[in-house]
């Protein structure tokens, strides 16, 4: 096996157990990607790094992280400065296309793949400004200009387009969807994202490395624990300080609370999108009860800034523990009743079954990941595949389905919700003693790369953190599973009709803010 031959030379990345790094020459870049794909590896993230300087030439480096059965493999490619472009790997990993386009927008390094339309950049700043390599930001244009994006046209008689967004009618994040339709029949869907682009990668470089978790916690509000933990995991790996056992357990508790809250919200919203308002009122009530129990335990409804470098900000008092375990029991019992109602409701079943189908074969080809992937036969869950503390002890069960439709995604959410309720009860019961916060994290060495990888409720979230001089951040690249899954939504809608899109979209429930960076 060729992969094994060259990957044996990969060096373990300090501080990130299971992660290896290897330098690859430019001419081998695509071949290596192909070998990884052939060995069942999946592309996790793609980013470039280089010191902020006034344009080229600068010693920049291209990174690609792949998930392989033994762990994460980071391919590194230094710029040879002789070529303007790096070899694109869109053909091997279709979802690499948008990552490459985004990489050009922020780092000014183009791939050789044909699609060179901007992804994160709209019209708000000039095309020759790349926030990660140019020091001075352009002065804002007086009049904001609308974006002029070249959508793919479907030719043919009677085809027309429906443009939805970026301002949607519901209470959801901004994004633009372009449907090419004939009547109700969807011929093509094209997404245009990047509306929530807040320049976080550049913002990271302006923060001290010990403060970065606060920004990480605000990359994606529904996954705040996931991101903050991924950031802190990367940072703690760099610093070489393990966290106390109690802190790890408390973080896992927070992560499961986050998962449960999001699943409850989604299950209600899915019912509501199918016109079954009973589902929304019941599940949103349960979610409210869970948030209140969280508030009783930690003084917060959503656990922003709960995960801090070295541990957690708050500890769990016995009253809080009781509130949480009572709530978890109540949730599990109520959800069982509601699942019975959902399963027996003919109208709901008709809406859910067969809608937004992604077959396991297509899912594998497109790299579908996370919760949505598990509903399409992609049985990957880092919590059981590559468990980190305390999941190695907790041994969570892995949910899964192979139908790949909305019904399957609902079923996976139910299963994971039950499992989260069980885990919450278990963690509260068996929480180890000791401190919840390690004192004094040392400043990480300059230039070191740390990787944080956490399975959030949506899927695996990765943060690549490169330390700068004297406690600064040189580069921080957050990666959301939505990068993998957004393109698949364009496939899932095919064969469905326009009014079924909101339901299918909700069943994916992908991140905008976390994706738009």
């Amino acid at each position, binding site marked *: 096996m060729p992969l094994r031959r060259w990957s044996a030379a990969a060096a373990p990345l300090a501080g990130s157990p299971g992660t290896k790094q290897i330098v690859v020459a430019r001419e081998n870049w695509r071949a290596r990607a192909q070998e990884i794909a052939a060995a069942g590896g999946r592309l996790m993230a793609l980013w470039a790094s280089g010191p902020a300087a006034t344009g080229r030439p600068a010693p920049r480096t291209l990174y690609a992280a792949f998930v392989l059965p033994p762990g994460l493999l980071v391919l590194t490619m230094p710029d040879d400065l002789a070529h303007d472009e790096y070899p694109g790997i869109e053909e091997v990993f279709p979802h690499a296309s948008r990552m490459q386009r985004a990489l050009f927008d922020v780092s000014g390094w183009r791939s050789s793949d044909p699609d060179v339309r901007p992804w994160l950049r709209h019209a708000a700043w000039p095309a020759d400004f790349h926030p990660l390599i140019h020091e001075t930001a352009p002065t804002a244009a007086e009049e904001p200009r609308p974006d002029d994006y070249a959508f*793919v046209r479907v030719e043919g008689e009677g085809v027309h387009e429906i443009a939805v967004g970026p301002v949607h009618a519901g209470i959801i994040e901004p994004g633009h969807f372009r449907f090419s339709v004939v009547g109700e029949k969807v011929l*093509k869907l094209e997404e245009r994202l990047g509306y929530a682009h807040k320049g976080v990668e550049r913002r990271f470089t302006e923060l001290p490395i010990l403060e970065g978790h606060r920004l990480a916690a605000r990359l994606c509000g529904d996954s705040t624990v996931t991101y903050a933990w991924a950031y802190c995991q990367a940072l703690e790996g760099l610093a070489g300080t393990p966290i106390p056992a109690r802190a790890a357990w408390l973080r896992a508790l927070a992560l499961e609370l986050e998962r449960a809250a999001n699943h409850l919200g989604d299950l209600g919203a899915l019912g509501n999108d199918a016109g079954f308002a009973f589902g929304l009122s019941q599940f949103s009530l349960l979610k409210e009860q869970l948030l209140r129990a969280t508030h009783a335990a930690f003084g917060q409804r959503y656990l922003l800034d709960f995960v801090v470098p070295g541990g957690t900000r708050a500890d769990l008092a016995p009253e809080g523990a009781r509130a949480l375990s009572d709530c978890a029991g109540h949730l599990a019992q109520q959800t069982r009743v509601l699942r019975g109602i959902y399963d027996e409701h003919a109208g709901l079943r008709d809406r859910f079954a067969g809608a937004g189908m992604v077959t396991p074969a297509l899912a594998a080809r497109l790299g579908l990941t996370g919760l949505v992937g598990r509903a399409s036969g992609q049985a990957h869950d880092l919590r059981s595949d590559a468990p980190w503390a305390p999941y190695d002890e907790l041994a969570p069960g892995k949910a899964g389905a192979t139908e790949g439709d909305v019904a399957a995604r609902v079923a996976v959410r139910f299963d994971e919700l039950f499992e989260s309720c069980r885990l919450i009860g278990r963690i509260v019961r068996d929480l180890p003693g000791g401190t919840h916060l390690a004192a004094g994290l040392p400043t990480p060495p300059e230039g070191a790369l740390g990787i944080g990888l956490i399975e959030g409720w949506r899927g695996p979230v990765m943060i690549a953190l490169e330390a700068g001089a004297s406690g600064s951040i040189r580069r921080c690249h957050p990666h959301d599973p939505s990068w993998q899954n957004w393109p698949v939504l364009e496939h899932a809608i095919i064969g469905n009709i326009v009014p079924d899109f909101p339901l299918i979209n909700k069943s994916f429930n992908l991140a905008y803010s976390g994706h738009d960076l």
Partner: protein
Amino acid sequence: MLLGLLPAQIVTALDTVVRQLGLQGLPTATAPWWLLLPLPDRQASYAPLVFLVTVAAVVVLTVLAVRAVWHRRVRRSAAWDCGFVRLDARMQDTAEGFGQPIRHIFQPFFAMQRELPTPFDRAPHYSVRIADRLWLGLYQPLGGLVRALADRIAWLQQGRISAYLLYGFVTLLVLLALML
């Protein structure tokens, strides 16, 4: 238009013609002139003219009433586009699109050949050819049969006067033979 608005008059006028023809006319009209049918209004009634006037009057009344209570301004602004500025003519519904739901409902009656794009297409294309199943299954074979027959018969029409004279001669002979 006239028939629609003043049906009773026209029906009554027609009624006299019917009576003159010696047929039994409609029951004697007892209803007022403005009703649709000269039938008792307990059975069915429709007064289009009054109807139209009333609806128009109610609409005008509504306009006046609203004018009396509403004293605010009217502002013109761009059509609501979800915040996306570049809308163009491609976003107008097409005739094909407007009729699609109905075609979908009557799908079994149509023979459709569709060329659908896939998300992998770089230059997607759509086309549809619709044929009527009834046309294909019933009328077309029937039409084919008639045409084939006509083709055969057309052989008779040689287009020469001598041939037609011959037909006349043969016909006469046949008739003669039948007479005898």
